[in-house]
């Protein structure tokens, strides 16, 4: 409480205090509202996790975790729930997609942020952003109409002929609905995503660094290689990891071209059955067979945990990168 030695100022003081009080109230209220709003997503995540865990509980109790994760036979009507073909399918498709997508995206981001003239940038950047906005079912359709026949008629026979000794390129699946088709569609889908992140990361390097480097006679590539790249490497890795988790969770486009066969694949031309496709395809049948719904929700839980792991990795990579930059 402030002293009020003079009567004249009394009314002014009360007025000021009133204003102050109302501002503080607004401040408290705003901070409460924002806190509540930002807690909501976190609570939502916990709720989703809890629901999945509760619904998956029956099968986790009846079958050992090892039995579920390493079992390779999927016959729900006979009570056999092996997730290994699906985990393997997801990994094959995602990793192959990233092998295609990561180098292309990062090189493209380097070009856009370091080499491209403003007009080129203004032309290419929006086009790439549009790619990111195309619905995944459209990509799937494009995959069925273009990629699958191409893989069936050109890629598979050619690679099989050139490398008959490589099991990676040899398959008994002659249809083109394959891991390669899924990975190609997926790669095209995540490329704009990774480009967007990498591009923003590269632009955080201050202009002055470029200018200093170019001023001492370094070429553009040397500038990129020795000045820009070390500062953004962590950010680029984070972008790729986020892209990986995006690819891992993609459902519709992959499901339409990947062949959906619950076997453990050995070649990029084999059919695979990713976790997401398992849920999307069979969610309909889950009421009719005992434990089926529980098994599907367990696979959803698995998917969530794997994607969570990717995101934690991305966060760690980013943190290390920023820490190094500050040091």
């Amino acid at each position, binding site marked *: 409480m402030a002293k009020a030695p003079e009567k004249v100022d009394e009314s002014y003081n009360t007025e000021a205090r009133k204003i102050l009080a*109302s501002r503080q109230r*607004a401040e408290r209220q705003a901070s409460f509202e924002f806190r509540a709003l930002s807690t909501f997503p976190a609570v939502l995540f916990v709720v989703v996790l809890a629901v999945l865990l509760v619904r998956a509980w029956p099968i986790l109790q009846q079958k050992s975790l090892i039995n579920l994760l390493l079992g390779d036979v*999927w*016959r*729900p*009507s006979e009570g056999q729930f092996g997730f290994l073909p699906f985990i393997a399918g997801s990994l094959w498709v995602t990793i192959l997609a990233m092998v295609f997508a990561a180098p292309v995206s990062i090189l493209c981001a380097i070009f856009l942020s370091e080499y491209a003239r403003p007009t080129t940038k203004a032309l290419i950047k929006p086009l790439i952003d549009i790619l990111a906005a195309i619905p995944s079912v459209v990509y799937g359709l494009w995959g*069925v109409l273009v990629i*699958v*026949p191409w893989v*069936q008629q050109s890629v598979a026979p050619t690679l099989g002929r050139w490398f008959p000794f490589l099991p990676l390129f040899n398959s008994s*699946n*002659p*249809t083109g*609905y394959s891991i390669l088709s899924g990975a190609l569609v997926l790669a095209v889908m995540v490329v704009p995503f990774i480009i967007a992140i990498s591009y923003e990361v590269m632009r955080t390097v201050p202009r002055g660094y470029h200018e200093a480097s170019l001023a001492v006679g370094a070429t553009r590539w040397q500038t990129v290689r020795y000045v820009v790249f070390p500062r953004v490497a962590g950010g680029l890795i984070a972008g790729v990891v986020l892209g990986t988790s995006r690819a891992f969770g993609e459902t519709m486009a992959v*499901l*339409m071209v990947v*062949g*959906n*066969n619950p076997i453990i694949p050995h070649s990029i031309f084999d*059919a695979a*059955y990713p976790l997401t*496709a398992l849920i*999307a*395809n*069979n*969610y*309909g*049948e*889950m*009421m*009719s*067979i*005992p434990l089926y719904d529980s098994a599907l929700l367990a696979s959803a839980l698995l998917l969530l945990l794997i994607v969570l792991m990717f995101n934690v990795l991305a966060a760690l990579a980013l943190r290390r990168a920023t820490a190094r930059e500050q040091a």
Partner: protein
Amino acid sequence: MKKQWKKVVLVAVMLSLLLTACGSQSVPQNKISVSGAFALYPLMVRWAEVYQAENPDVLIDISAGGAGKGMSDALAGAVDIGMVSREIASEEVAQGAYGVAVTKDAVFGTISASNPYLEKILSQGLTQEKLAGIYLTGEITTWGQILGDASITDEIHVYTRSDACGAAEMWAKYLGGKKQEELKGIGVNADPGVLEAVIKDPLGIGYNNLNYAFDITTGKPVAGAAVIPLDVNENGQVDADEILQTNTQAVNAVSSGRYPSPPARLLYLVTRDQPTGAVSDFIAWILTDGQQYVTESGYIALTPDQITESLNRLK
């Protein structure tokens, strides 16, 4: 202080908007949502068209996604009516699934019209045993084995449905009393997806519901596809009553019982517990006035006995 009030009013308005958005059922309109089997989808669209024209206060919302989805959605209360193109499992009945048969159709084997052995296949037909060899045991892998000609070594490219559906259930049941999960082949999503894959692949084989295999406007198989005739009496050739070149031949074969059942089967509308109100009225209309659209849409009409039985299920 004034600002505070503004805020309260704003929040109140937003809340009321939110609540009215949720409570739209209070509008005097009967909304019926339907989802499920691809097999029933085209006919349901026709029924809904006519019914909505006759009853302007009814709004029918239809989506296709396979029999399994129809069943799950109906049991979960996500839709009012599920379209189901297979038998209803006892587990599902236990959870409240209430099925009413409304029409009939069948699943047919399909191949590409550009299959190099098209003529031979259409004249010899396939037996149940050979189809089982392709889809269940995997013993038959070449077209030569089907045609009894060892010099033909072209592989058969087998396609099946990836989504849980009645067509696959019926196909597996016909081939050996099995389940969808035991069918071999590359899984493609949805009825039109399998057809597309078969049309594009000269060595492909698949299976489709009646109204996806045949084009309703021409009465012939969809352009680029051919329907495999079943050699039911296994005499090594397709007899006159086994030909399945047009929609009419297929419908006759099914309704006369010459085409086996399964893969011919009843199509059901499933509700959670016995239907009431607008939903019940709609199903009752389907079983009476609605039946006139069954044959024109390329489906097989129920017998009068079956209709009476279905109507009794509504009472």
